[in-house]
């Protein structure tokens, strides 16, 4: 019957149609000004960088930097919240103008996205329960110990490089799941950025931060590689708020101590 053939051809062409899909171009800086909306892809990975506070407000260091930015150019910030798996496609596919997460640039990642100059450097630390035999972070790297890390974060590669002896356990449930794993003695130590770890120290009185920092990560925003104007503009903006002291104010409040805890 000819119908059979026709349906097969239709189905086949439908499949190839999807495969040959290109990418759309949208949301250059000019569009931001025209539409009055700054669409930013964020990840709710936890305090103090990006989280939902006790009043249900989206806030955190990266978020407040974006809010400041939007206010300065008189546009509305629109936060598009994704799991880390959704961040990259959101920027590539034009859902968002840029991504404001604590993603760290490296040689391979910058092949795909363009990253701004770092607006802040953040120390990575290891933390553990006080009853573990650790003083410095290197102690937790010895053979026979295990370290918990957030799946997909740059710290995975860091651990593989710096602590090849230790057992590395990646948790898909984020920083809170790693802290819980440390508390439940499922891993001997956890790794996260200094500011997040400082938060855990308040939540878990029997934790302490191990001495030293295996790495200092640059924090950058990322754009599609063809958005050079936007990228330059972001770099300029960071320079401006660094010079007038507003960036430091925000960093002091959010990243260099528990001041934010009282309000959020």
């Amino acid at each position: 019957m000819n119908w059979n053939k026709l349906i097969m051809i239709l189905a086949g062409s439908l499949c190839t149609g999807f495969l040959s899909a290109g990418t759309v171009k949208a949301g250059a800086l000019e569009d931001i000004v025209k539409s009055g909306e700054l669409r930013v892809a964020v990840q709710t990975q936890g305090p103090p960088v990006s989280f939902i506070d006790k009043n249900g407000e989206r806030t955190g260091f990266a978020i407040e930097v974006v809010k400041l930015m939007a206010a300065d150019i008189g546009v509305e910030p629109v936060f598009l919240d994704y799991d880390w798996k959704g961040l990259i496609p959101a920027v590539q596919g034009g859902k968002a103008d840029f991504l404001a997460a604590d993603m760290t640039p490296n040689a391979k990642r910058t092949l795909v996205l363009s990253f701004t100059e770092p607006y802040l450097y953040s120390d990575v630390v290891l933390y553990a329960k006080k009853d573990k035999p650790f003083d410095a972070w290197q102690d937790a790297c010895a053979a026979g110990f295990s370290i918990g890390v957030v799946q997909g974060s740059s710290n995975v590669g860091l651990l593989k490089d710096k602590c090849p002896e230790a057992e590395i356990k990646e948790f898909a449930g984020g920083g809170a799941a790693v802290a819980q794993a440390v508390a439940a003695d499922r891993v001997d130590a956890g790794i996260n950025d200094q500011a997040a770890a400082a938060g855990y120290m308040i939540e878990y009185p029997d934790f302490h931060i191990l001495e030293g920092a295996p790495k200092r990560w640059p924090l950058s925003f990322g754009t599609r590689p063809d958005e050079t104007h936007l990228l330059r503009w972001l770099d300029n903006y960071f320079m401006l708020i660094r010079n007038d002291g507003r960036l430091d104010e925000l960093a002091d409040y959010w990243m260099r101590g528990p001041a934010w805890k009282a309000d959020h």
Partner: protein
Amino acid sequence: MISAISSALPFLLDGLWMTFKISLATIFFGSLLGAMVGTVRASPLRSLSFVLGLYIHALRGTPFLIHLYAVYFMLPATGVAWLQFDAITASIIALSLYTSTYVAEVVRAALEAVPRGQVEAARSVGMSTLQTLRHVVVPQALKLMIPPMGGVYVIIIKGTSIVSVVGVSELVRAGEQAAQRDPSHMLVIYGLVALMYLAYCYPVLRIVRWLETRFGAGVTINI
């Protein structure tokens, strides 16, 4: 612990409400689409049924996260205007497609479970195809569908948790965010999340059991 519960509860209730809305929309559209696909699969249209079989297997053989990725990120990349969905619409579409594969198999199994002899008898007393469906096949098939359909719905309710990837704040996402603020009470918060799913799913399963005692066990399907 009490304060952990009371501070997390409002967020979790918001999440539950979102889960409820998305799952209802999904159950509606997924069942509609599934009923159509299942009817075609049970019909003598061999080639169409084969293509729909591929559709069902492709969706069932891959994790749902990948469907969501395709609907939310890849379809807009085609540049077609009406394929640009927001996160909630994309979630409902992807979940409905996924649901339809299960519903289709339930519908097909139920339609095929009605004995052929009855259809032939109905035709021989002069009923048209439509009349046969309306008066003989569908009433019996519906009864057979009810119990497995309840199971499918409960799977869908829990399946909604994956849409948090595109930023929809449903119940699991709300629990995750509450746990970020209060990591030391993570288990309490996830326990509450489980209780809320239980409060939503358990009545569905109870109703199904009650219907099962009224109408019989229904069909078992390859889910």
